[in-house]
């Protein structure tokens, strides 16, 4: 498959269609995370943070910013990408996607590309909101954007998979609610995993989100729970795993083509 015979118009059509949905409801899409983030700062940053010392030389309010952004980006990536593909399956309009001259790569590029774009926009909006509350320093801006984009991309792929796997709206909610939210809270969004007692620290290292949050925080403040190279490798590993599953889905027609 070469770039010239890619169906670029199809990718653009899907991408634009999905982004139009986002911009139509931009108010809602962005208001919720902005309000939630503000509340976190009121509660954690000001009320509790005042009584917490600095972590690794960073004030508590500032320390939690990368974790908060990750928390929102992860959940929104999952939700958006899952919804994006589940909705046409649910309404039945996916028939057109299946009957059109589009390759799996083009379908995924359109849907996941749009969902990831939304997540990155969201992450940046939260960052802007946070900067109104606490002083933020970004030591490695390119890495910051890189981690943000990579995380958005891999979790949108993951969301795409759950959107194809889900057979009902309940199932669509299960993964973000049951898996991601707890993993994020236990993934060092609000603390350094060095603060965990012995065994838990080891347990935490099995949590993939630890690597994302740690790498992302490193891009801000230059210190990390795990080496940044390992964070990057773990994120890329997750991305590749998701790509593998997506490839398998289209090869077998899983839940798309009986």
């Amino acid at each position, binding site marked *: 498959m070469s770039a010239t*015979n890619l*169906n*670029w*118009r*199809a990718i*653009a*059509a*899907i991408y*634009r*269609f999905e982004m*139009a*949905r986002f911009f*139509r409801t931009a108010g809602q899409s962005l208001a919720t995370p902005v309000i939630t983030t503000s509340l976190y700062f009121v509660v954690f940053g000001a009320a509790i943070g005042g009584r917490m010392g600095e972590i690794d030389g960073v004030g508590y309010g500032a320390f939690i910013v990368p974790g908060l952004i990750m928390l929102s980006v992860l959940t929104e990536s999952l939700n958006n990408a899952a919804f994006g593909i589940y909705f046409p399956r649910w*309404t*039945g*309009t996916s*028939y*057109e*996607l*299946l*009957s*059109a*001259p*589009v*390759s799996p790569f083009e379908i995924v590029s359109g849907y996941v590309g749009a969902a990831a774009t939304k997540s990155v926009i969201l992450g940046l909006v939260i960052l802007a909101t946070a900067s109104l509350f606490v002083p933020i320093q970004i030591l490695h801006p390119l890495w910051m954007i890189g981690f943000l984009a990579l995380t958005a991309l891999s979790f949108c792929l993951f969301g795409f998979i759950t959107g194809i796997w889900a057979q009902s709206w309940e199932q669509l909610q299960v993964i973000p609610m049951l898996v991601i939210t707890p993993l994020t809270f236990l993934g060092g969004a609000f603390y350094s995993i060095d603060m965990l007692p012995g065994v838990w620290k080891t347990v935490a290292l099995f949590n993939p989100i630890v690597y994302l949050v740690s790498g992302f925080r490193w891009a801000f403040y230059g210190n990390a729970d795990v080496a940044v190279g390992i964070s990057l490798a773990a994120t890329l590993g997750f991305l590749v795993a998701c790509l593998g599953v997506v490839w398998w889905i289209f090869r077998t*027609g899983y839940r798309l*083509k*009986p």
Partner: protein
Amino acid sequence: MRPILELDGLTKTYASGLQALKPTTLAIREGEIFALLGPNGAGKTTLIGLICGLLRPSGGVVRVAGLDIVEDYRRARSLIGLVPQELATEMFETPFAAMNFSRGLFGRPPDHALVERLLRELSLWDKRKDRIQTLSGGMKRRVMIAKALAHEPRLLFLDEPTAGVDVELRRDMWALVRRLRDTGVTVILTTHYIEEAEEMADRIGVIDKGRLILVEDKATLMRKLGSKQLTVQLQERLEAVPEALARWRLTLKDDGHALEYRFDTQAEENGIPALLRQLHELGIGLKDLATEQSSLEDIFVSLTRKAA
């Protein structure tokens, strides 16, 4: 001329083990209107789904304008338009946006003039800026047709285009299909209604329990349709059809109490007066006479019963 669509041994067995389509071989001529007629669950939608890429075939080959739908899926699919049986639309979008989306998916550049023409033709122009959600069922179906035509397909599938559509709209639909045919588009439609197949199709395929049991030019079918039968109720029971009546090829019915004669209404001579004279000469007494026209419906019922 190369057929626009060729099926060769196409078959489908669902995961449940049900063989919804038995190996089917069929060729569709470019520019014809082909009606696939069959009862609920016959396999019509399955057949279409296999051709259009919605289902994975269990065996066989499909070629569209000579292009294999698996190996050459891009070129093959860009020739096909599909209006599925179930209503499914982008509820929150406008007809205009939905059509542009469809056209883009099929890799075609935007063409507002074409979109406008189609919307007008389908009486949707006034609704182009409304959310599809707010349209009536018949309008939604027309939006689906407009979407299917947005990339200018050469082969159009209409899966029960007139289900749940009022009489007037049905006529509009028929007119639209004819107009499409006039522009060279081949149309394959499914229907439960014999009347519809009769009205629209150049050829008719009858499918039942996953088997394509008949494919015939409509004209040929109509000729069969033109046959009538005369039933003669006898006063006395006959053991066998008398030798002297052989040329009418009668059948004995009703345990010997009736004779049945099939004749062609279009033939110059139907042979009835001669038959009646002959019966009289043989001294066979008649109780009653009745004629009956066989309809496509009868042919259909007898065919599907035979296949069972």
